């Protein structure tokens, strides 16, 4: 039982917090009393949705890496490059920092993110205990790094717009680009579908609510007693 949080969780007190406006709603409310948004104690079927979106991202990850992300036409000669191929070409040309940026953004980040969210789902669904703060950190990083994988897509978009000189030199988007942006979008959606409060629900809070409720009631009683003691005195002073 954790003693550091005397008020317990919103769920243990029968409250539902709105994700948009942070208003605390009483239990059983379907829409937030302040902003009117649908509220849930926990996101419904969070794990299932997250897993479905993650599997979609995994499936898309194969064409994203196999199909060319862009096609270059230089003096009538057409060459197509995949994500990893493009990074390798950059490395061979000697522009190491950019090759590293591309590799991190397009290979390391999606793989890390997909595996991180998979681990979270597995650990939350599992009955065993895990170090919760570390798990929560994993979630925080997964949400933070998600959108940075879009760098490669933006590079393709810019090159396609800029390098349009007909047969002399032009760049066209490849089918891999759409698949890769799908990977990024679905991993972002998966991270959003995951409810981080599920991580913390594994903490032993079950015995806490009753004790806390009793504690608060006692406090209230004391307060009301104090008030009832004080008020008559004040009124007495007023009367004369």
């Amino acid at each position, binding site marked *: 039982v954790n003693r550091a949080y005397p008020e317990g969780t919103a769920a243990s007190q029968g409250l539902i917090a709105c994700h948009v406006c942070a208003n605390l709603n009483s239990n059983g409310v379907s829409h937030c009393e302040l902003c009117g948004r649908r509220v849930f104690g926990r996101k419904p079927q969070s794990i299932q949705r997250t897993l479905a979106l993650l599997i979609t991202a995994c499936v898309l990850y194969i064409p994203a890496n196999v199909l060319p992300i862009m096609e270059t036409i230089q003096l009538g000669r057409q060459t197509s490059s995949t994500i990893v191929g493009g990074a390798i070409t950059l490395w061979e040309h000697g522009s190491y920092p950019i090759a590293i940026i591309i590799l991190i953004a397009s290979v390391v980040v999606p793989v890390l993110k997909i595996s991180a969210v998979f681990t979270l789902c597995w650990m939350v669904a599992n009955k065993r205990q895990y170090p919760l703060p570390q798990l929560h950190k994993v979630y925080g990083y997964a949400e933070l790094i998600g959108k940075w994988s879009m760098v490669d897509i933006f590079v393709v978009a810019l090159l396609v717009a800029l*390098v349009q000189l007909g047969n002399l030199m032009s760049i066209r988007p490849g089918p891999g680009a759409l698949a890769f942006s799908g990977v990024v979008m679905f991993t972002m959606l998966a991270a959003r579908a995951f409810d981080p409060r599920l991580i913390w629900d594994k903490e032993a809070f079950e015995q806490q609510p009753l004790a806390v409720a009793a504690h608060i009631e006692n406090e209230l009683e004391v307060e009301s007693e104090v008030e009832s003691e004080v008020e008559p005195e004040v009124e007495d002073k007023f009367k004369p």
Partner: protein
Amino acid sequence: LLVIAKGIRAVQTHNHSHQLLTLGGQGRRLACPECDVLLTLPPLQKREKAMCPRCGHTLLRHRANGLLDSMAYSLAALVLLSWSLYYPFLGFSTQGQVKTMSLLEAGSSLVSSHEYILGAMVIFFIIVAPALLLITVLVLGLSVQRGRPSKFAPVLGHTFYEISHWNMVEVFVVGVLVSLSKIATMATVEIGTGFWSFVGFSLCMLLAVNSLDRHELWHHVRLMKPLSPAELLAARALSADEGQLDIEESGIEETDIQENNHNKPDRTAAETS
């Protein structure tokens, strides 16, 4: 624009609505959005932020003047965005042939090479989503400033919440830098006015989003919500009490203090309701 906003703020210093503006989320009871633990936000000093003791999530940052700052940055960002849409973004020349592109072409050239979904996504992530974010901040901020409830406040608040995850302006800036160094070996690249205004836009965008206090904003929406009949009665009684207070302030001090003691609980109750 920031200077203008600060000027407006200086004029409003004695305004009652402005005093509410500095309230923020302090003293509010809320559940941490990431671990659901119930907390009461402490008053914050400069450069302080409130973090959840259980999961470390940042709940509130100290902002002297969050909403007004955010509005000023939003306005500046919108102006800079329109500049970067209007002026040439990048130029590219090799062997006597020159090609310049605008910001919009980053998406539209994808569409013209039959990648419709990709083009729409790029335009949404770098132009539509940030612009919508800024407009919602401005509209909500203006309605708060005027102290008049906006019918669309909840809808705008929800769009802000949904879109804020899809704003990829800073990622695009990194993308521009990467592609610049990629082409630099192939040809001469000219950086246009549009690019510099886009960099300014992304900075202002970052500041606008960072200086906005979600709790403060919703606190105002809560205050501006149309009152129920019971609340209206309470508010009328409150204003009547305040009227008495003003009269009695010129009178004997002792009664004044007693009145204050009587009124204070009522007033806080009415405000929280």
